[in-house]
């Protein structure tokens, strides 16, 4: 291999050229080092290709299929459970409701299954509805795997407050008079509280005033969230339990029609949620009381457990967006449209 021949001075010079080449090249290298002038992403062309919906800007989560999850959210929007109605000898109306706690997998976004705990198989649970002064009986059966209860907001005897755990297989009947009128909520009150509520045991509970409200298109909306990996942060934010439900299937409304929304916030793991309406103003009645100071606005916020009634008319035809004004919640599923015809 390396016998007699010495490394000559000329060889060293030859090797030096490699170094010289290196120094010369570093100039070129420097120019390309950071790949200058890389595309400003979000170039126009890229956006054009992605917008094939009529809501041209917000088409990033478009899905027109009517999945099981969407159908649940849509049904809960206009479904009110008035119970089984009979008249008591004293003339009072008696309403009896059946409530069953069931462990059930719920589709909370297209293709995503959430192992939920439910009242009657939906998240949120049914919207119970009655009139002030009615006698209410909630026949509760726990068919779930954990102890549960129903804690109703409103005025009632403390022993009907739902602080006692009803164990799997057990039954209990909550009985009280509907009072006061307005929008109430109900939820499970078994420890650990956050887990029991977040899993899906909650819903709206409407007590109508004795003097009926003006006829309107009535909508039920429960704001909620879902934490899939149990890290105390929600992956999805929804209304009536399904992400982007009314974004992809707008809620149809007639021009100048009175719309009444029963809105509550049962989001767990976040302090506040909000409702913002585009291109219009609404009147907001906290807890659904006409005698409370109301607001004329386009944005309201609700703390956990807070609720109220929104009344609005749409003077123009077209699509009106509504969403949580926390952008993060909106982009994680809490966004929708009213389609005014």
């Amino acid at each position, binding site marked *: *291999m390396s*016998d007699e021949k010495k490394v000559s001075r000329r060889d060293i010079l030859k090797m030096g050229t490699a*170094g010289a080449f290196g120094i010369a090249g570093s100039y070129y290298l420097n120019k390309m080092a950071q790949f200058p002038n890389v595309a400003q992403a979000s170039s126009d062309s890229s956006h054009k290709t992605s917008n094939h919906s009529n809501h041209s800007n917000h088409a990033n989560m478009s899905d027109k299929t009517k999945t099981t999850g969407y159908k649940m959210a849509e049904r809960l929007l206009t479904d009110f459970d008035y119970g089984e109605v009979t008249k008591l000898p004293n003339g009072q109306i008696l309403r009896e409701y059946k409530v069953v706690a069931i462990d059930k997998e719920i589709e909370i976004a297209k293709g995503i*299954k959430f192992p939920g705990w439910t009242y009657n198989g939906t998240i949120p649970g049914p919207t119970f509805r009655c009139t002030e002064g009615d006698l209410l009986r909630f026949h509760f059966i726990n068919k779930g795997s954990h102890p549960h209860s129903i804690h109703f907001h409103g005025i009632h005897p403390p022993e009907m407050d739902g602080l006692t755990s009803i164990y799997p297989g057990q039954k209990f009947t909550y009985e009280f008079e509907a009072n006061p009128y307005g929008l109430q909520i109900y939820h499970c009150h078994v420890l650990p509280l956050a887990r029991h509520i977040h899993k899906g045991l909650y819903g709206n509970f409407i007590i109508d005033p004795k003097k009926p409200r003006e006829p309107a298109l009535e909508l039920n909306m429960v704001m909620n969230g879902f934490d899939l990996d149990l890290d105390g942060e929600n*992956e999805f934010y929804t209304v009536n339990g399904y992400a982007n439900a009314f974004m992809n299937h707008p809620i149809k409304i007639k021009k100048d029609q009175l719309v009444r929304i029963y809105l509550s916030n049962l989001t767990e793991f976040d302090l506040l949620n909000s409702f913002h309406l585009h291109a219009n103003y609404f009147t907001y009645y906290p807890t659904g009381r006409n005698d409370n100071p109301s607001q004329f606005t386009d944005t309201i916020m609700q703390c956990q457990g807070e609720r109220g009634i929104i009344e609005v008319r749409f003077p123009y035809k077209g699509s009106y967006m509504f969403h949580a004004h926390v952008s993060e919640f909106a982009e994680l599923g809490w966004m929708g449209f009213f389609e005014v015809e």
Partner: protein
Amino acid sequence: MKGKWLITGLIPLVLLIGVLGWVLKNGAGIEKDPAAPIEVLNIERIKVTKIGFELSVSNTGPKPLTISQVMVNDSVWNYSVSPQAKLERFEEGKVTITYPWVEGDPHTIKLITENGIITEGEVAAATLTPETNWSNFLNYGLIGFYVGIVPITLGLLWYPFMKRFSRKSINGILALTVGLLLFLFVGTLADGFEIGAEAPSVFQGNMVVIIGASLTFLLLIGFDQYQQRKQEKKGYSPFGLALLMATGIGLHNFGEGLAIGSSFALGEAALGTFLIIGFTLHNITEGIGIAAPLLKTKPRFRDFLLLGVIAGAPAIVGTWVGGFIFSPIWGAVFLGIGAGAILQVIYVITKMLIDDHKKHAEPSVSWLNLTGFTIGLLIMYFTAFFVKY
């Protein structure tokens, strides 16, 4: 007799198959279904394209899984999966997301499966992933050239200077080389573990590094011993030793190239030039190391060229691989091999030093040798400041 003997070998085998069959059929007796679904989705590579992101994913869990939703920076986003959203075990797929990313911004991508299992991928600083074209190919090759061949050749240039050293100083230089190599060995191993940890857990990246390193080490030693017996030669030819070193260092430099190439591809090498200067400085010492065994011989120019290329050129290949086809598990394999090769060189040089000092009835760990070794470690330690953050 022979039949009986065979049967004694078969009995445990048959019983084993019986036991396994029973367990497979009836379960381990604790629980049949896991409490939570086990789904393992791996994001192997995120490509930043003009229209958004392209993720190479694979299902390395025990069951098929379905990708149902995608979020980018906490926003539900449209996506498509090819061939389809349901991936069988070990099946690979490509998730395409149209997204208006922002140059230099970090982007978090969450893939959510049907059962709500979340896999997160990160683009540390978004920048277009270099396309595989001739111009990029050349650019990447040039980076490899600067990091690999240039510094090693420059290091080799010290040869005439070192040539005049006495036997003891030459041994000191060799001890210095051991210091350099020890640093490189640990560094290569650590890099291997780091990259291996990014590989899907089913491939056990860390074990791949260990297997690669130990097998390479033993194979090289075995091959050496075989060669020696065959040629009935004593000791190593100096050039052979230099060649061994160049090979080991070459594999290490492949790893460096991999690191540079992939960091460019991931958009993390905003300080690219700085990184290159750092590596270049760091690698000059490798040239000194390679030249050290040759000090008692009279090598030819083309020997130096060969050594420089063997030790340096893998950096070019590494830069290409890192920039265009990087996969953590292959990175772990190569770095493991590199670590094993370096370890073998350390073994050989140390043995040679000890033998030489024994022959002259001197202590192997002389003050000069200790100093050389320490300087070797320290040079590597301080020049590494240029490439670590």
